[in-house]
């Protein structure tokens, strides 16, 4: 498929993502705040619904095309040390301005001009890593990022099946009305 057509598809899918994210009100900065406050039910239910549908969809996709299926997302950098550090920095950043990536994009679409400022202030942070820190660290991604089934040395279907059942069970537990 030629790249321009791919971009058009991507943009249209993006409109769909933005539409549903805004309608549902998905933001993990908000979600983390809820969890820290001990009230994480809403974000947990949102996350579990996304997790169940995506895990099944991504796993089953390998029966459609061999090059699909579960993929190790992101790189395990420095035996995972940098993943934790960058997760901490990212977590701190989103709690500071109240918008994860989806939250920032959503609020830009909702007319909150503060998040155009946030969006632009990504640039110095990214440039600092890409042009300053990365060359220094030079520590490549020598550790091959793997999936949970590989780590546990358990065939994918069993791991996928059990995590999805666990997630479904947790979602149902969270959704049943409180009996007085």
């Amino acid at each position, binding site marked *: 498929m030629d790249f321009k057509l791919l971009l058009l598809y991507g943009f249209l899918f993006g409109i769909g993502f933005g539409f549903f994210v805004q309608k549902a009100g998905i933001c993990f900065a908000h979600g983390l705040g809820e969890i820290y406050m001990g009230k994480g039910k809403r974000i947990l239910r949102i996350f579990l619904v996304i997790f169940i549908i995506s895990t099944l969809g991504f796993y089953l996709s390998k029966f459609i095309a061999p090059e699909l299926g579960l993929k190790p997302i992101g790189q395990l950098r*420095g035996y995972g040390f940098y*993943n934790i550090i960058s997760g901490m920095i990212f977590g701190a950043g989103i709690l500071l301005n109240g918008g994860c990536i989806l939250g920032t994009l959503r609020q830009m679409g909702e007319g909150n001009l503060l998040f155009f400022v946030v969006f632009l202030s990504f640039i110095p942070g990214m440039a600092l890593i890409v042009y300053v820190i990365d060359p220094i660290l030079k520590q490549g991604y020598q550790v091959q990022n793997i999936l949970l089934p590989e780590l546990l040395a358990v065939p994918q279907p069993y791991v996928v099946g059990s995590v999805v059942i666990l997630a479904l069970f947790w979602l149902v537990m969270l959704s049943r009305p409180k009996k007085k």
Partner: protein
Amino acid sequence: MAEKKGFFNPTLMYAGAFAVLNVIMYFVIHKFWIGGSSFLPMVGKLGPNKTFLFSFIVNMGVIVGALVSSATNREFTLRMPAAKVLPRAILGGFLIGIGVTLAPGTCTTSFVIGLPMLSISSMLSIAGMFAGGFIVYRLTIKSQS
């Protein structure tokens, strides 16, 4: 406002629709939504066979989609930020810029794509996110209220 009871409340239906749409994109054009690294074209990195550029365009669509949705709900309002909140927003954005680049796939992507793909690096990133977020939560939000 929408009814919130039980299992089939609108929030979960729309969250499910987001996930289904993402799976469809994966089936149709073999790509999925990406968060942080999609902004790397802004610092000149287009990514392996221009994946980041593709994801950047997807995320421009996300902004438009949010605009359309908020307009239909009559929730779209142009809001200028007060000057005094800018430093904190800029610092937050700067940290996000660092966080998404220091180890790729350590942002919202971990929650929405990484964990469903059962990727180990995403699990580590999420652990870090909880820790980093909690520090800021204790320092700023707790002290304000």
